[in-house]
């Protein structure tokens, strides 16, 4: 059995909320009886109407295990029932139903050398890994590749750049790098010593990233994928 922790339904008070861009809302919760998570795990956030109707979605955790608060970064999807509510209606002090941590597959606790490839909001669980790596002094065992259309659209762009992630923008030039998805030549040195590869992003991104990893010699059995569809 997996030794990843799991937690039951509980509640969390929204104590911090900010909007780093038009489409992103960063939420920090004080969780009742919080169970410490592993980097890469997710939580379910549930909204409840007075007539008992509920809507719930899963979100990857951005905070590191040692953080006393639980941090989620929610991308606002067109017509997204939960993401739209968190973006437009949620306020500091509101109480939410939360369940987690969940998932024992897409986790990295720092023991193995890993390469992580995130697309757009798929970088969120990698932020948890990156923060954890710094905390335990394991940054040499974690390489992060972040792919986005523009820097503005990349969640945690500054944090990723400051801490050595390779950032590939596909629609915007950055420094000497012309807008393009990551090239095999750029990936090869990053995957060199990796025992496990993590891929997180949309369906299209995940299939691109797993193909790219394959091209630079990563065995498909060592790739762990976390995909999200349009689940607003």
């Amino acid at each position: 059995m997996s030794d990843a922790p799991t937690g039951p339904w509980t509640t969390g008070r929204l104590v911090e909320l900010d909007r780093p861009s038009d489409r992103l809302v960063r939420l920090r919760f004080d969780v009742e009886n919080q169970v410490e998570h592993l980097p890469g795990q997710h939580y379910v956030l549930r909204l409840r109407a007075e007539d008992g109707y509920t809507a719930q979605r899963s979100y990857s955790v951005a905070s590191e295990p040692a953080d006393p608060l639980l941090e989620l970064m929610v991308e606002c999807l067109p017509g997204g029932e939960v993401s739209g509510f968190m973006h437009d209606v949620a306020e500091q002090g509101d109480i939410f139903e939360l369940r987690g941590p969940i998932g024992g597959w897409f986790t990295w606790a720092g023991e193995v050398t890993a390469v992580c490839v995130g697309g757009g909001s798929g970088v969120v669980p990698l932020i948890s890994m990156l923060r954890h790596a710094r905390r335990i002094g394991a940054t040499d065992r974690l390489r992060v590749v972040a792919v986005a259309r523009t820097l503005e659209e990349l969640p945690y762009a500054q944090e990723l750049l400051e801490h050595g992630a390779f950032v590939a923008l596909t629609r915007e030039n950055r420094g000497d790098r012309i807008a393009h998805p990551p090239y095999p030549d750029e990936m090869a040195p990053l995957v060199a010593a990796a025992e496990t590869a993590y891929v997180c992003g949309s369906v299209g991104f995940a299939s691109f990233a797993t193909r790219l990893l394959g091209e630079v010699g990563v065995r498909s059995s060592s790739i762990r994928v976390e995909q999200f569809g349009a689940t607003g």
Partner: protein
Amino acid sequence: MPVTRGFGSGRRRGRPERLPPGQYDTGRDWPVLTAEAQPDLDPEHCTMTVDGLVDRPRTWSWRDLHALPGSSYFGDIHCVTTWSMIDTTFAGVSVDTLLELAAPKREAAYVMAHSTTGYTTNLPLADITGGKAWIAWEYDGRPLAAEHGGPLRLLVPHLYFWKSAKWVARLELMSDDRPGFWEQNGYHDRGDPWLEQRYQGDP
């Protein structure tokens, strides 16, 4: 549990009576969720095996499967990530047909579905017999796409969709239950969407 300030049920769409608790109607969008890299399989070379606690372990080729009496499913599917799709149509062969030919032993009570990728999921035998499960190769009248588990996918629509193993290649009958891939990783052993059996520890 507390009511969420400012949240109404007005956003509910589709046919609420068809949606298990906590699910929403995804319309015709079929999200793709997998834990592993998608395999590239040639239908002509894929096979389906039923073994374990059976009197006649068998392997069917793609052609053998198509020669069996066909069977289809028209109805809803539910994913644990909270989307449901209403009125889907799948075609293939009923798992009953395969089991009839393989003849399960009396002590067989559970099944492990195995995929070509190494993915596994466990089910009580009772959940895949009696017209409740299919080996499907067609969706909406077309070959089932690789991203949705084609060429062959186990279809168990009355349970959460992770039980409907993509790229299925083998059903192993067992006397005792054993957790599969997601079940070892925190998900429920049975996964009935109407009882909201999403994770280990749910009722």
